[in-house]
């Protein structure tokens, strides 16, 4: 059966039974055909019905990877691994992303886990071997190592779902939130006086607004603390705000700092809370690092 026929049949099946898991092969077929927007819609709709299905997060991650959104792809694979720690596809995907980022030990760890979870997976064994070679070359440069595999070779070796290999976005290098979505646009860390410590934020028009936003948030921090103290509600944990075009999530990684996470309003608050939790951990590690 051709890919076109596959898609037609699967679409018919999904229309007949919207709650079926046929969205998984349909999304994958669309992705392979390059219909990424349609594939993303199918994956997101499936996740709406099955938010705890690791395969659905894996599908969305592959689509996002094809779209070049590697940070969100990483997040989705990370969720898949939380739901199913042995998920071969998620290990393979994250291993690939670590490889692209030059984090070879982590790449090897995840690719080996993918191999252990699915020993017959074509290409994974070769990928593990290539990463080991690259690691050996890094550790012993004088031994005339073989050339490091290119990301494109990695894709071929692993039959990766990611068809193209864009450069990692610059914000992935951010010192505080490295590796997190929105490390330089959408995450702000500030002190209790409203001074920005890290991260950044741009307005929809592209203007840098991090410092201005941080200055206003210091007052929020103080009023929220006083309000919950007055009501004897214990320490405040978070402030979530929904607007017509964005969702906001504030938390306090430490008693002297404030974290703001901003996403467009298609991202539910629950997901913001989860992302903020990860960012808060990174912020605490950064704040408590040795001088």
């Amino acid at each position, binding site marked *: 059966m051709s890919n076109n026929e596959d898609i037609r049949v699967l679409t018919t099946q999904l229309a007949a039974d919207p709650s079926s898991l046929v969205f998984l092969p349909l999304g994958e077929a669309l992705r392979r055909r390059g219909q990424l927007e349609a594939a993303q819609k199918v994956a997101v709709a499936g996740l709406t019905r099955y938010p705890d299905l690791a395969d659905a997060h894996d599908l969305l991650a592959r689509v996002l990877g094809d779209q070049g959104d590697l940070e969100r792809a990483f997040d989705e694979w990370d969720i898949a691994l939380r739901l199913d720690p042995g998920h071969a596809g998620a290990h393979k995907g994250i291993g690939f992303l670590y490889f692209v980022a030059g984090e070879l030990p982590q790449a090897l760890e995840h690719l080996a886990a993918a191999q252990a979870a699915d020993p017959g997976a074509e290409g994974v064994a070769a990928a593990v071997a290539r990463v080991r070679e690259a690691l050996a070359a890094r550790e012993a440069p004088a031994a005339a190592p073989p050339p490091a595999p290119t990301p494109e070779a990695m894709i071929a070796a692993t039959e990766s779902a990611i068809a193209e290999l864009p450069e990692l976005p610059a914000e992935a290098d951010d010192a505080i939130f490295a590796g997190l979505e929105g490390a330089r646009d959408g995450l702000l860390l500030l002190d209790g006086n409203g001074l920005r410590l890290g991260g950044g934020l741009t*307005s929809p028009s592209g203007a840098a607004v991090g410092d201005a936003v941080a200055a206003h948030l210091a007052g*929020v921090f103080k*009023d929220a603390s006083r309000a919950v103290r007055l*009501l004897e509600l214990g320490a405040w944990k978070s402030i979530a*705000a929904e*607007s017509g075009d964005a969702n906001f999530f504030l938390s306090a990684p430490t008693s002297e700092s404030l974290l703001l996470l*901003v996403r467009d309003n298609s991202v539910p608050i629950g997901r913001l809370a989860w992302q903020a939790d990860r960012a808060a951990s990174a912020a605490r590690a950064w704040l408590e690092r040795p001088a």
Partner: protein
Amino acid sequence: MKTGLAASLEAVTRVRGVRGAMVVSSEEGLVVAEASMEGIDGAAVAALMAGVVVRLSRAIEAAGRMRPAFVHLQAERGALLAVPAAGDLLVVAVTDADVNVGLVRLELRRAAEQLA
């Protein structure tokens, strides 16, 4: 109008886990109307929650985004929820920690519509 608003506030307080509800002037931080606020210093809550929402709104506007339509302050043993209404008014609920936030938000929005 007044009866409708009072009824809307009472509908908010009928949600399990809601300790009280009020309408607040966000400019002045003053209580305009309230329901079931026994044991809660409404005037102080009004002033502080108005401060939180106004400052947060300024931060959000500084980010180039639309003003908030819902604010949820979560604490260890409770929460404060607010929905802006017409003019400079806010509808605020004080709740227990495990309240059904979605249901409270729905009732707060209905109460806010009464103020339009």
